[in-house]
């Protein structure tokens, strides 16, 4: 009985007691059919080398990485595994890559992350080491948008943390693809009003939400007002 009570409270408090010392980009196994930001990161790593490129054109090609682990990703993973026989194939008892991202492949991928993200973005072992106060995780975040409002064509600067080399900026009216951040802390893009030009003089200022999605995940939104 005592043991049962102890186990109950231990399991209840375990998630709070456990502290992750290191950041893991690949926290789960990946295989055909799964999707997520970790798949996007995987494809970016694969596309960093010509021999492991997911696709030469279309979805999965460099700059067009997707969230979905399809057949092309599986084949590219298999080619990557073949490049690491000592680290992946031999310990797993494989003669060739199988396209399944298990613990051995994930360990290799963790080492390869640094090859695709700016140096200021590379985690240094502690989750909060580079993060500002009130930001306990490594996810991308936007702290400021400048200016706060403006008409169609306004160049907007986003300031925040964990911006990657390529980021997709989502707005309430659509997506700005592959916007790059050289320093990992600022992003610039041009506002495009969704309101047809002929109608703009009739429409009051339009409030939109802006946020980014990159290899670190999705940031929270920030407001912008499109004026006429």
């Amino acid at each position, binding site marked *: 009985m005592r043991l049962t009570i102890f186990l109950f409270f231990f399991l209840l408090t375990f998630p709070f007691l456990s502290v992750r010392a290191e950041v893991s980009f690949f926290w789960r196994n990946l295989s055909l059919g799964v999707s997520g930001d970790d798949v996007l990161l995987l494809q970016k790593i694969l596309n960093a080398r010509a021999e492991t490129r997911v696709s030469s054109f279309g979805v999965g090609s460099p700059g067009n990485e997707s969230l979905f682990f399809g057949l092309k990703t599986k084949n590219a993973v298999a080619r990557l595994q073949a490049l690491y026989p000592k680290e992946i194939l031999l310990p797993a008892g494989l003669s060739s890559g199988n396209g399944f991202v298990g613990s051995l492949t994930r360990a290799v991928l963790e080492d390869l992350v640094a090859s695709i993200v700016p140096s200021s973005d590379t985690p240094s072992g502690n989750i909060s080491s580079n993060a500002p106060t009130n930001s306990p995780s490594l996810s991308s975040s936007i702290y400021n948008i400048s200016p706060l409002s403006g008409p169609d064509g306004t160049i907007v600067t986003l300031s925040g943390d964990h911006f990657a080399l390529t980021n997709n900026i*989502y707005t*309430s*009216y*659509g997506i700005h693809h592959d916007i790059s951040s050289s320093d990992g802390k600022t992003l610039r893009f041009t506002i495009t009003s*969704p*309101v047809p030009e002929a109608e703009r003089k009739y*429409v009051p200022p*339009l409030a*939109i*939400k802006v946020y980014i999605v990159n290899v670190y995940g999705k940031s929270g939104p920030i407001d912008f007002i499109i004026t006429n």
Partner: protein
Amino acid sequence: MIKKEQLKIFLAIISSIFLIGGSLLWTQNNTRAAGIINFGGRILFVNYCCNGGAMVHVGPPNPGTFYFQAGVSKLFDAYQIYSPGVWVLGNATYGGVCQSAESGCSATLPAQGTIMNVGTSLR
């Protein structure tokens, strides 16, 4: 012969079904009575309004034309209410009009409802 224990289990299952089913019907009737429309589908296109916000035309499976009124309609993740092609799910109260900017504010477009809450897909 049915044992007493089996009879108890059977009665428990039957009463659970009635309780759950009844509560669902009750909720549905209440929703209708309160004049709330639930909608969900892809955004087909958007008309901007002179009185602010936009008319959102939602396709199947639960289609309709709904007025997204800035400051009134609550927008949830992924916030893409002006993006044709994304999926939306939300509810609205009956009524609402949009003075169409396309017509130079001369035409009034009636909405099936004014959006109360709406969430969108990422793409």
